[in-house]
């Protein structure tokens, strides 16, 4: 059996709420993601699914539990080591795209090369833009791109360093059905090539494109699903 891409074990995370109260955003969540698996994590707004995604990405330290990426226990590493693991193995796609506004499409795709030297980064970025139908838009700033194009640039950027795990937070939330389909196709293709995808979404149609779908409620994943 091949090594798990992601393993989350009994993680919990609480935030400080109003008037000294505590909000338990994630409660004893466990899940595993194997190579080639495309998992959708659904649930209503505020159920904690985005927090799980940030915990999985090494960006939000859980109060309890463990997170492993390709066998590396993330939160036993220091900040710089976690950043190195993210740079090497993870790709992020967000609902708001988070493109750098002053970089053209090509430079945005190349942004991960700031974290680590990537051989043939420019050729790889050009291939990705070609693959996503953006080769004629490579010099355009995000403000000159449509939302569908922006999300495709964001996905190309997430794929530049050939990650093993793609973490997508509502990647189709701002897209029309046609563009949403396109993005889901690319995510599916990535999984089809052996990559792992953890996609947070409350869109049932998007969740149906995943190979596995899990629904969170009040910070928990019902035991029958995990």
């Amino acid at each position, binding site marked *: 059996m091949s090594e798990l891409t992601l393993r989350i074990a009994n993680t919990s995370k609480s935030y400080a709420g109003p008037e000294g109260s505590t909000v338990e955003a994630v409660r004893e969540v466990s899940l595993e993601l194997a190579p080639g698996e495309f998992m959708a994590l659904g649930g209503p707004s505020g159920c904690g699914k*985005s*927090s799980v995604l*940030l915990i999985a*990405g090494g*960006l*939000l330290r859980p109060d309890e539990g463990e997170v492993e990426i390709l066998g590396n226990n993330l939160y036993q590493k220091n*900040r*710089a080591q976690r*950043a*190195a*693991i*993210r*740079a*090497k193995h*993870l790709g*992020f796609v*967000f609902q*708001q795209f*988070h*493109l*750098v*506004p*002053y*970089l053209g499409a090509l*430079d945005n795709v*190349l*942004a*991960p*090369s*700031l*974290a*680590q030297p990537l051989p043939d*980064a420019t050729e790889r970025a050009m291939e990705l833009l070609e693959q996503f139908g953006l080769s004629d838009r490579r010099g355009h*700033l995000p403000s000159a791109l449509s939302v569908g194009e922006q999300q495709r640039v964001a996905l190309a*950027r997430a794929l530049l360093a050939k990650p093993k795990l793609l973490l997508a*937070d509502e990647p189709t939330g701002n897209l029309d059905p046609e563009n949403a389909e396109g993005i889901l196709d690319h995510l599916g293709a990535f999984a089809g090539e052996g990559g792992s995808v953890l996609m947070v979404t409350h869109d049932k149609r998007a969740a149906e494109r995943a190979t596995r779908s899990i629904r969170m409620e009040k910070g928990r994943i019902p035991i029958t699903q995990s």
Partner: protein
Amino acid sequence: MNVGRLIILEIMHRKLGFALAVATVATSVAALVAVAALLGAHDLRTTQMLDEMNAETDRMEEDFTREMKAYEDGVRKTMKGLGFNVFIFPEGQELDEVYADGFASKTMPETYANTLAESKIVTVNHLLPSLTRKLKWPERERIVILIGIRGEVPIAHRDPKKPLIDPVQRGRVVLGHELHRSLGLQEGNSTTFMGREFTIEKCHSERGTKDDVTIWMHLEECQELLGEKGRINAIKALECNCASIDRLGEIRREIAAILPGTKVIETESKALARAEARNKAKKLSQTAIAAKKSETANLRADRERLRLEDGQKYTALLTVVILVSMIWIAFLAFSNSRDRQSEIGILRAMGISTGSILAALMGRAFLVGLAGTGLTLVLAVLPSGVLRESLHGFELQSLVGYVPIVLFSVPALSCAASWLPALQAANRDPATILRNE
């Protein structure tokens, strides 16, 4: 992709923010250059003013020296006839006769002059024996005054001094103005006087005194013509140096001790007034020069005090300008990092290190400082020709030695001002940013 490209593209994208920061730095550097230029111009002007005043003082001293020399020469010549001069007349000579006729009727041995010269007399500097008579010029039918002179008798116990009167050579005469004018005689002409042939050595210009009808000749020839061989009727003593107020009494006492019975009178007191005037003029000139030197010293002190005050004032102003600029740059840096927090969040999520993000923010701050400094330096050089006049000829280019310091220190200050906002932005929790977005 690298940090440098990221910085440049960000600057190109947010031109206004960058331009504002650059303008702020340029203002600070301009204030710095202005202060340096104003202080430099002040120093230059001080040097110019002191040079002018020193030159004026030197000129005054030179003028004073020259004028005093000319004045002293003039006084010296005047004193020859008028100065602290006394006449020594023969014993038994009635002075009312001298005052009436202008010369003594009695005579005394010419050796008296030698006796006086060989004595230890200290109140007299020059001794001029003479023989004077009023008589008719037989050949010309004119009443003239004949004076025989032999020049100065050197005083034995003194160092030889410059003779005050040039003696008339034998066979030569000097004529007063009225004589040569009315007789149509000129220097170099020959004329006969009491049967002797003389060459006219000199014709005096008009003096308005009895000198205008006087003939001067060598004492010996005069004695021969008048049948007064070895006799004189006056010894003129010149440049008497009496320190006391009763100078005439002092001279009389001294001469009486050497030549008993002789009569001593002071010729004129005008010379004393002239000498006093000369001394006064000298004192006034020296006072004026001293006042000028004091004025120069005061000017130097005033300018130094003014420079100190200006320096303190400018330093305070400059400190305020730099502090306000740094606060403004810090605010702009904070504003810039706040605008970029989404970008910083995603870059951190992609695994880009805090150091790289900090380098991008600080690199921008460095370029702000560099561009602001460069802009000011270029703008300072361009109008320097126009400013030169108002800066008393001070050349802004003379500050070029400070350029490396400014080029290093200003970007460093810009980085220092941006450091806290940049550090705060680079360390912001990406999860918080991404979740809030």
